[in-house]
């Protein structure tokens, strides 16, 4: 065990710091032109797609360098590296691993330049956690796949130019997983209808997507027919160590401590209340545990050992923290806790209220806590499937 960085890693970290000192103003001092400047700069610096191979235009960085970079960025509340959210998170990695040369040439540069958005068509009205049972149909007809069916909860669908889509091409496979195929679909193809859904904050960030005889040229098949499940698991597995997530949670924790110091409970300073002190310490301990779990898993990855279901451990911690840190903040606020973000008397402009209505992406989006528990129980502990 050794938590010191190698001289090369130290040099990398100081290079990152110097760059940030020169190019990233503190939050609150960033002008209207900053986002554009930032996206050009980090693209030129090779930080977008940092761990992707150099041949496809990525940064060719190591896992350890990536962890260092993410930590430094998160510590300074830097904006994301590139705005093509899903393209950078999993479409790109899937293309790098499974795409044809033509597909790589066609899409990866645009993803790195964040030219447009990608969306993800996995969930269906009747298919959520049990994704492998998906029913949306893809039928090979000549040089096309013809798609019929529906997707739902598709984030960014109304703005995206492309979708990574899972369809069932074979109903007769022994394992349902083997009949799934991954297609890349242009969102303005004839036959696609997008119908936005408002979330509980009344924001239409996800949508229903209907497919009526949508023709997808065979050249937009990703991997082989029937390989869709494997591609999905591989692509979703791409984001592993959760280093940037931890820096974000530590930031929240600092704000929470600030709130504790400013709050009074029953007329007495909240910071003197042993129950409140313990609660904050529990959050802090959980975040630290995530950090060191993440580093253990990162070490395994660097050593070339498989890291799979262990990541469900930190997903469960994230779910807990996302739900209960903001809830605890509302509790500290007492009666003020129930005010809407826009209310005049709302504390801190209602930032905790926004959080208290905003945790669903992290908790439900990538597999619910119950599903994470199933993964641990079945794949790590070897207990029977339910």
């Amino acid at each position, binding site marked *: 065990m050794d*938590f010191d960085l190698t001289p090369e*890693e130290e040099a990398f970290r100081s290079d990152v710091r110097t760059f940030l000192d020169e190019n990233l103003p503190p939050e609150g001092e960033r002008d209207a032109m900053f986002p554009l400047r930032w996206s050009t700069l980090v693209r030129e610096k090779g930080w977008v797609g940092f761990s992707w191979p150099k041949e496809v235009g990525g940064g060719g960085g190591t896992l350890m360098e990536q962890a260092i970079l993410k930590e430094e960025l998160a510590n300074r509340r830097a904006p994301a590296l590139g705005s093509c959210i899903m393209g950078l998170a999993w479409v790109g990695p899937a293309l790098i691993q499974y795409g044809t040369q033509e597909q790589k040439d066609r899409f990866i540069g645009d993803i790195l330049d964040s030219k447009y958005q990608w969306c993800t068509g996995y969930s269906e009205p009747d298919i959520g956690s049990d994704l492998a049972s998906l029913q949306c149909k893809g039928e090979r007809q000549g040089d096309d796949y013809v798609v019929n069916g529906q997707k739902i909860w598709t984030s960014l669908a109304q703005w995206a130019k492309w979708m990574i889509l899972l369809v069932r091409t074979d109903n007769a496979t022994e394992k349902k997983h083997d009949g799934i195929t991954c297609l890349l679909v242009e969102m303005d193809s004839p036959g696609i209808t997008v119908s936005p859904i408002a979330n509980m904050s009344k924001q239409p960030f996800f949508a229903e997507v209907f497919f009526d005889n949508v023709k997808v040229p065979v050249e937009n098949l990703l991997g082989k027919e029937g390989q869709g499940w494997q591609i999905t698991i591989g692509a979703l597995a791409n984001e592993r160590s959760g280093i940037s997530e931890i820096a974000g949670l530590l930031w929240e924790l600092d704000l929470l401590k600030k709130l504790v110091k400013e709050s009074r409970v029953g007329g007495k300073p909240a910071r003197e209340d042993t129950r409140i002190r313990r609660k904050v310490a529990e959050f802090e301990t959980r975040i630290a545990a*995530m950090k060191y*779990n993440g580093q253990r898993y990162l070490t395994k990855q660097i050593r070339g050992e498989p890291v799979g279901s262990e990541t469900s451990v930190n997903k469960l*911690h994230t779910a807990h923290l996302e739900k209960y840190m903001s809830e605890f903040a509302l509790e500290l606020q007492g009666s003020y806790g129930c005010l809407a973000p826009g209310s005049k008397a709302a504390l801190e402009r209602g930032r905790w209220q926004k959080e208290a209505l905003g945790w669903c992406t992290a908790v439900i989006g990538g597999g619910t806590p119950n599903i994470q528990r199933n993964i641990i129980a079945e794949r790590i502990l070897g*207990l029977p499937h*339910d």
Partner: protein
Amino acid sequence: MNFGFTAEQDIFRSEVRKFLDNNAPLEEVRRIMESDEGYSPKLWQEMAQMGWLGLLIPEEHGGVDLGWVDLTVLLEECGRTLFPSPLLASTVAAIALMENGSAAQQARWLPSIAAGEAIFSVALVEANDRLSEQGVELLGEKSQQGAELRGEKLFVPDATAATHFVVSFRTGDGPEGVRLAVVEAGASGLTIEDLPGLDTTKRIGRVRFDGVSVDADCILDGSPGWAAVARLLDHAAAAVTAEAIGASEGAHALMVEYAKQRVQFGSLIGRFQGVKHPLADMYVDIESFKSLLYYAAWCLDKNPEEAPRHVSMAKALASDAFTRIGIDGIELHGALGYTWEYDAQLYLKRSKWVKAAFGGSDHHYERVAALGGL
């Protein structure tokens, strides 16, 4: 950065495990825990020969000069089989000498610890049960030879097995008034009493000092008051937590195995989410306090400033998690879990000791809050 064990450490782990599997399976543990001594003097000598008793002790004093991370491996494996021995007490006492003893004091005692000739324990906690400077009430009055001790220490691990104690006492007010000294078990005015505990694999004692005379050369020269004791308490809490990793994993493995065998309502009980989800949550808890403890262990050697916070986080999480594992471990086995014969009860009882020893979750979370700026 490299957050994993070395190949040597992996080999060490499998050697320790092999030794314990051969010599201390749970049937043997049961026999040892009911013996008068509460440990096996024969195995103790073998542990000395293998270097376990001098793991952290420098080679010049007969030890093998390894680090806290290696110690973690050893304690984890001892915890896994609930192995009853004064190893934890003796190791913490050795650390006390290494951190606070003069060269002469180290040369005088460390070789006998490493060789298994002397068994040292630490007497740091009193009836007031406070793990703060105010908790040290035992009085050391200045005398011609050195000091004369009056008072009482409680919750002394392996007190009846010990030949020597590292004891904290007070010569004056405030944190600076605290000192550490080595006292022999046979000293006149000293009474040692065994206090039966819930966990009989762990012996707990009371040590009374009725005017025990301590020579000046037995007072640890380099001990800078309370800070030295606070550091020792960190080492002790970390050692308890390291054992708790193995013990929790042992308890958890017992449950997982049972969930894969027991059939009710025509189904393996491990298929019911009311059974499997708590088992998954326990896995999450164990993984998490394990990561925290590994980092804390590294800090104890390499980054002492960060050690207190991380030891406290690990011990707090471990105390609560193992408590739950102990309780659920009984429930999951149904009536079988309630029997003397079945081993689940041994883990439950160990969890009661882990929770209490050197600070429970309230104490350690409070420390995390204070060190975190609240």
